[in-house]
């Protein structure tokens, strides 16, 4: 077999062209995630230099972009984008729950709301890590994914509220006590730091860099995942759909090459920016 033929065979093996793909996220959800992570990266990149304004890199960055008037402007702009994404998501939830009367949004197997099974899954997962039990079988959303979701949900409310309180301090002062104006900066910067550290280390590893998904879980970009991955990662949802005969309804197109490449460029850029910011944050935080 020539080198070229060998390479061609390997490429066919890799492409899984014959494999079925299942929809996991709607285009709307994917766009919302894109708006979420781009504005979050922007907020982190412009917020960190303020949080660690004493460090050399922060001052260098400030000089580079032409002063902090510019950075503050960009921070506020990203904040508005993220606020819009948040409001669209909340509106979407309400429409699905109260207009379309969609079931299972607030409770059940496909809900983001934590339930008793999540507690059991967490304990079971931890036991599996150290070899004390079998690997738990996960539903549509596993407990760490629900945690990610609610951490971001709570984070956006807390960081957003404290941020707007600083932006429009005289207005917020009408109904907040004096010390709250001091507290909002502490809350904003600590919660922001937590979000940055969590997303750029825990979320990146749990969702993208762990061996099952390495180097990146493309599902949030392409919307679909392969049958093998679906079965492996979310066995209960897969079996449930199969039992109900709804599995076929979820079959989607395999992602195109351009879609995969585009997702890779965007995704790896985001991860790279995140990791650089993580290193800068840790270096500044540990020196404080």
């Amino acid at each position, binding site marked *: 077999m020539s080198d070229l033929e060998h390479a061609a065979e390997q490429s066919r093996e890799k492409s899984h062209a014959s494999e079925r793909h299942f929809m996991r996220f709607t285009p709307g959800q994917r766009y919302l995630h894109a708006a979420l992570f781009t504005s979050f990266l922007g907020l982190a990149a412009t917020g960190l230099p*303020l949080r660690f*304004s004493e460090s050399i890199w922060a001052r260098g960055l400030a000089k580079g972009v032409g*002063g902090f*008037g510019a950075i503050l402007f960009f921070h506020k702009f990203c904040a508005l984008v993220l606020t819009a994404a948040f409001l669209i998501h909340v509106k979407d939830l309400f429409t699905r729950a109260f207009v379309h009367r969609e079931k299972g949004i607030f409770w059940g197997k496909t809900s983001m709301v934590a339930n008793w099974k999540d507690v059991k899954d967490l304990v079971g997962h931890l036991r599996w890590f150290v070899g004390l039990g079998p690997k738990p079988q996960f539903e549509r959303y596993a407990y*760490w994914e629900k945690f990610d979701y609610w951490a971001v949900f709570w984070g956006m409310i807390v960081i957003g509220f404290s941020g707007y309180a600083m932006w429009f301090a005289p207005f917020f002062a009408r109904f907040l006590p004096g010390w709250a104006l001091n507290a909002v900066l*502490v809350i904003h910067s600590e*919660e922001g730091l937590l979000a940055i550290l969590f997303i750029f280390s825990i979320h990146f590893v*749990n969702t993208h860099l*762990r061996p099952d998904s390495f180097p990146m879980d493309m599902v949030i970009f392409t919307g679909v995942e392969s049958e093998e991955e679906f079965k492996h990662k979310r066995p209960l949802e897969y079996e449930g759909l199969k039992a109900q005969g709804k599995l076929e309804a979820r079959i989607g197109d395999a992602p195109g090459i351009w879609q995969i490449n585009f997702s890779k460029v965007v995704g790896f850029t985001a991860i790279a920016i995140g990791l650089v910011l993580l290193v800068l944050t840790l270096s500044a935080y540990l020196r404080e």
Partner: protein
Amino acid sequence: MKTVSSIALAFAALALVFGPGRGMAQANSDCLACHADASMQDGSGHSISVDGHKFGASLHGSLKCVDCHTSIKEYPHPEQITAVKCESCHADQAEGLAGSVHSVKAEHPCTSCHGDAHSIFPKNDPRSAVYALNVPRTCGACHGNDAMAKKHGLPNVYPLYMDSIHGFALGKEGLLVAANCQSCHGSHHILSHKDPQSPTYKANIPKTCGTCHAGISANYMGGVHGKAVARGNLKAPVCTDCHTAHAILQPTEAAFRMQSTPICGSCHKEKLSTYHDTFHSQLGSLGGYVETARCWDCHGAHDVLPASDPRSPIAKANLVTTCGKCHAGANASFVNYQPHANARNRKLNPALYFVRLFMNLLLAGTLTFFVIHTILWLIRSRYDQIKKKAAEGGNHV
């Protein structure tokens, strides 16, 4: 000046009595017969030529050569003549100089500042080396010299001064009232700033600057710093501590706004530390965005007063106005904000202390749990993956 002219008169009288003749030093024209030669040099190669016209037009033009060169009694005069003694006429200045930092005469002859004695002009004449606009250049001949500065352990102040607001006013605008070197240091009786008699001694600085800046000096003397200095507390800042002595900047300049907070903070350490925790500092320390509040934007600059004084800009009744300078819409509730709150101090700021504690515990708790969770997960997944691949033939491990 009176002494000079009476001596000149005496010599003129003598000349009249004895008339011209061999053996007597005579009219300046006699001296110039030889010394007008521009190439004339003494044994060691120094020029000993004199431009008669220039001399005649100078401040000393009415004098005779022998009035100063007193050892010359006859012509031809001896090869070695004694040095001219300026102090024989200028006794007060010589006395001042003798007790000054420039007292070593060999290093600082009168001519080192005043220039050639044959072409000296009054100090209000632009041709004079000590004319106000020429003073910095004259002093800078030595005090702008790195080697000289190093030798005497002094800063090289000339470039600092020339770039300062005083140097700009004097050098670029030609303002005669702008402070030049001698406005602050004096001229003949210059003393070290360590000498309590010196106008540049710390306790005397407010008075020295106040010579011109009378209004600000009065403000300053009414504030806590001025009062402390007047009481003899030399730890309190005087003008130069914030504005520096030579490199004085326009206080609205970005560079000055950037350098000023650490200066206040060098004494008010705890206040600087709590200021660093605030948004004012975070934005401000990054350059570019220099409009954020610095110490004196709230406390006042010269007449700093404690919050208990009703005239202070940080007195409770004045806060809405003070904060309102930047924060349009500031109200009574808004000014309850504490610009120096210390989230690490439970007694002073209990609410803030517990907010910070809660946030820190949340941060540490969440991250600790998930870091352990993720590391264990990584190890277990990788272990399973390797085991699975090994079972499939191990080609990828």
